[in-house]
């Protein structure tokens, strides 16, 4: 590795919601950088605004103040450099798998030979090629999520945002999909920022875990996650003794009072 290259930089992001019965301060002075190839996970108590933060980075929601940079360039609104994966796969049931994957390229008007070849390569590499003429209803939940990931990767984003991307799946499928997605993302050397409410999901995938506080939320701490093991994957690192240590620390950090 040569120099560390920072892909995403968020600087002083704040968000105040205007509601009928007053103002709600959701985010307060959030500063964060995500480096190339890094997997950063954001956790926080429910309702603290972690999804809001992702929506703001993706340009789907307005920020009250602050700036967002991708590769040192400021972005405003929806950026084509960002891929966003949501909780639901939202595959369109009237399109076949291939057409579903092409929708991003279609919308951005970049459906050309080069990108089509790239999609074909992804389809082949991740064993979707044989399903490409099937319809979403014919696929299992895990497979659908993989298709949703490829759909996001098709536009070659600089950074991927995962918003509770696995919480709609049942436990067993979730374990498999997490491993699957993790391997694809590492394989493609993607930079990822993931929001989750699931501590073990965060620890098992991330290189760094960011803990947000209650509203108005700010960054409480950032933990480096290291397992010192070869071929780390979200399954095997759960058995590492350090896993429960991290879990305990983060749980205390979250400071949840029922």
């Amino acid at each position: 590795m040569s120099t560390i290259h920072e892909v995403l930089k968020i600087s002083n992001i704040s968000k105040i919601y205007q509601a009928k019965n007053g103002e709600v301060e959701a985010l307060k002075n959030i500063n964060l950088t995500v480096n190339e190839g890094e997997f950063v996970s954001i956790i926080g108590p429910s309702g603290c605004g972690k999804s809001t933060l992702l929506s703001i980075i993706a340009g789907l929601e307005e920020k009250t103040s602050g700036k967002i940079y991708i590769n040192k360039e400021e972005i405003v609104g929806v950026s084509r450099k960002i891929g966003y994966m949501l909780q639901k796969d939202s595959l369109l049931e009237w399109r076949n798998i291939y057409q579903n994957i092409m929708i991003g390229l279609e919308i951005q008007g970049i459906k050309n030979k080069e990108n089509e070849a790239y999609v074909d390569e992804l389809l082949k590499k991740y064993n979707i090629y044989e399903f490409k003429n099937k319809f979403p209803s014919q696929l299992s939940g895990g497979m659908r999520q993989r298709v949703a990931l490829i759909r996001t990767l098709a536009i070659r984003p600089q950074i991927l945002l995962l918003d509770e991307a696995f919480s709609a799946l049942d436990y067993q499928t979730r374990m498999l999909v997490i491993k699957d997605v993790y391997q694809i993302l590492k394989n493609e050397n993607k930079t990822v920022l993931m929001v989750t409410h699931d501590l073990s999901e965060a620890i098992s995938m991330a290189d760094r875990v960011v803990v947000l506080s209650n509203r108005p939320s700010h960054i409480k701490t950032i933990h480096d996650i290291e397992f010192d093991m070869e071929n780390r994957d979200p399954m095997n690192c759960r058995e590492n003794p350090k896993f429960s240590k991290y879990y305990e620390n983060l749980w205390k950090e979250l400071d949840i009072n029922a």
Partner: protein
Amino acid sequence: MREKNISMERKKYLKKVTRNRVTVILTQIFVLIAFIATWEICANANIIDSFITSQPSRILNTFMNLSQNGLLEHIGVTCFETIIGFLSGTVLGIIIAIILWWSKFLSKVSEPFLVVLNSLPKVALGPVIIIWVGAGMPAIIVMALSISLIVTILEILNGFLNTDKEKIKMVKTFGASKLQILTKIVIPANISTFINSLKVNIGLSLVGVISGEFLVSKAGLGYLIVYGGQVFQLDLVMTSVIILSLVAAIMYESVVLLEKLITKTHIMN
């Protein structure tokens, strides 16, 4: 089915399903025949007055002389008016629904007006329509349009507004414009809404056309029914009513056929 050796249980079950279906159809046919036969016999035996009730053989007779007594032309007129009313109601309804979906402001402003117009019995507008567009075919078509339009707008707008928010969010993350959201998500997601509204509309347009013909026309099945009633020619009235129900059934079935065609090509391969 896939397996060749079907179990006895399965055979029994399949047989039972077929038998049930056949029994229902046979009973339906029997009820119809019994009704017609009773009607005919009672009329012949002077138990009921066929001057007031008409009778099947006379209806059949009128029906047979279709080409001579101008019935065919009347059927044509009614069908033409219904189809024009139906098409314009559907197209206009969809266009207005798209406009209201596009502009939240317009849809909020128009909401109370649409609700009031929807509950207003449109036949009450008859005299106004006649004065505005003149007594004749245009008035009848406008009548059909007024009955189907508001329902179409409300139903399609409702379908549009209930489109899966997650799907819309998904295309927004790719930077979709409002037009792209409309053409790539909202319209294809609402194919079944369109078809439902077609089904409702075809019936409503026919209601509009017949009530329009009651009020103004010189031709059409509605005109025949009113005319037949006034001159006490119940044969003509009954024949027209029966033809009308046939026309309604054929039109509805064509929409169902269209539905099958669309779902076949659009949703599944």
